[in-house]
């Protein structure tokens, strides 16, 4: 029985205004599923590209294919995951729903999806129209999301500690996209852009370190005390760290127009700060009360270890491609996957629990979170995923037939991820149906 003897009270409070503390205000669960499933499809495409065109990808980071794959990870995978999660999370954090959430999220999802496909096609086939149409759609999707998020935050009276950090991270997408469009103009000869490689580094810094880095760390800081019973990292430390990173990104960007060693070196400071944040999280996890190493935690830990490795390789020397794979594949895929494997089962359980109260089906025994994604399935995916990342790195160092093999393992890993998310959704639907009968 969901509410035991207090079933009536439970039902009553379920319908009163809950002042922002309840997941009841969260949008339908189909929305995050749609974003996560699309992300996993993009990840499958990356694997297939590695199988078909592997050798070409790793010639240099500037090959059309390398640029295409970079954007498949950042825009195809990460933008879907991060926007989908934020649309689900914002109403809970801010206590005020996103206006017309179903329509808005549909527009954002479709624009991100078609924008990513067009942009990547534009890169790979050097097709100017595709490139700009993709960039335009992506800019529209992000603008719409930022406006909707802003309305949600402003219209709620509640100020959430983490909203500042997340807001700062999302703000970084603006320069990343703007510089990206300018670079595309340079690439296609529409504008003459001086020092393309420096400007690309600035674009990359805003996107990967500013947007992905800050949003990912703000999310990790928020979630590790809840999922793994670690101590909370003090709010002011997080705020200061993110504000400093953001300011350093501005200084680094200025190095494009003002020749200054100080401005150029701010990138080193940003990397060091992220390394420090990563070590702080590792330390908090090491000191946690709950000593069980759950599989989702293994994903997060592995992602943090990849971050440390990426920083070391970056400092050691000129291994851009390896740093890129460690950062994009090792950190930016691994940590979100770990979080998704915890968030999806919890959302499924939470939505079903609310439905159970609404339907007054108190005799129905709901399954636990592990019913939606089992440890066994998450673990299998973990081995495939980490194996794929290492194989990709090996194939950069020793090019040859292993490139294709790494593509096969990466594809299998992505298909396994897709299957896990899809099966969780189907299991949710079955339970939902049982509650409606």
């Amino acid at each position, binding site marked *: 029985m969901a*509410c035991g003897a207090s079933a009536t*009270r*439970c039902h009553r*409070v379920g319908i009163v205004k809950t*002042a922002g*503390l309840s997941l009841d205000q969260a949008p339908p669960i189909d929305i995050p599923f749609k974003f996560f499933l699309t992300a996993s499809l993009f990840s499958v495409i990356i694997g297939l590209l590695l199988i078909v065109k592997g050798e070409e990808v790793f010639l240099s980071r500037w090959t059309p294919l390398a640029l295409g794959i970079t954007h498949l990870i950042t825009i195809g995978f990460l933008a879907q995951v991060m926007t989908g999660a934020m649309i689900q999370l914002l109403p809970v954090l801010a206590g005020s729903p996103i206006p017309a959430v179903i329509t808005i999220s549909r527009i954002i999802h479709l624009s991100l999806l078609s924008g990513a496909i067009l942009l990547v096609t534009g890169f790979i086939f050097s097709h100017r129209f595709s490139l700009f149409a993709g960039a335009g759609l992506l800019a529209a999707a992000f603008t719409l999301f930022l406006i909707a998020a802003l309305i949600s935050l402003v219209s709620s009276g509640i100020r959430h500690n983490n909203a500042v950090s997340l807001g700062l991270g999302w703000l970084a997408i603006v320069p990343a996209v703007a510089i990206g469009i300018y670079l595309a103009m340079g690439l296609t000869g529409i504008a003459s852009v001086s020092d393309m490689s420096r400007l690309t580094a600035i674009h990359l810094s805003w996107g990967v370190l500013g947007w992905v880095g800050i949003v990912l760390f703000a999310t990790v800081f928020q979630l590790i005390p809840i999922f793994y*019973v670690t101590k909370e990292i003090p709010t002011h430390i997080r705020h200061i760290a993110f504000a400093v990173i953001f300011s350093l990104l501005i200084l680094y960007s200025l190095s494009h127009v003002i020749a200054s060693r100080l401005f150029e070196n701010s990138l080193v400071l940003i990397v060091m700060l992220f390394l420090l944040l990563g070590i702080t999280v590792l330390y908090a996890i090491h000191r946690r009360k709950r000593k069980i190493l759950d599989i989702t935690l293994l994903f997060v830990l592995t992602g943090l270890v990849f971050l440390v490795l990426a920083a070391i390789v970056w400092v050691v020397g000129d291994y851009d491609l390896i740093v890129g794979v460690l950062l994009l594949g090792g950190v930016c895929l691994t940590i979100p996957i770990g979080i998704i494997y*915890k968030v999806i089962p919890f959302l499924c359980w939470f939505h079903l629990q609310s439905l159970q109260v609404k339907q007054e089906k108190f005799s129905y*025994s709901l399954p*636990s979170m592990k019913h939606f994604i089992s440890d066994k399935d998450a673990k299998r995916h973990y081995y495939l995923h980490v194996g794929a990342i290492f194989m990709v790195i090996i194939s950069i160092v020793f090019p040859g037939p292993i490139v294709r093999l790494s593509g096969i393992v990466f594809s299998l890993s992505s298909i396994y991820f897709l299957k896990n998310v899809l099966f969780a959704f189907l299991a949710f639907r079955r339970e939902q149906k049982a509650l409606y009968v």
Partner: protein
Amino acid sequence: METIKDSMTQDHRRCDDIFVEMEQAIVQQQWPEADRLCREFIASMEHHFKIEEELLFPELEKAAPQAGGPVNVMTMEHDQMRHLMKQLASSVDKKSKELSTGYSDTLLVTMQQHNIKEESVLYPMADNAVPVLADEIAKAYAEPV
């Protein structure tokens, strides 16, 4: 003097400690120990809920009507946790590691997100609205469960 937030937060941590030990016993399949710790954990949680539901929440709602919404959500989540604790106890009874860890994991996330909301929103609100309760609450928590 201890604030309401201090005593309540300490009690959260006490429940966490018992939970962590219980979960460890479940994973190692030490069933008599798991059973004992499960009972101890549920008793501690009920003790915590009782002080909130019978003492803190009614007084807080009287003093600050705007707290009504959050209080309702917290009470609803107590019921969710009661239900999960029942499912957990029955899985431990059946000596099923798979079922028990499934429910303990679900309970943990529900519990932690609940605690964070109480500690960051509700308890500071209570310290403002009904500071006179601080002593009484500290005493209530000092009593053995």
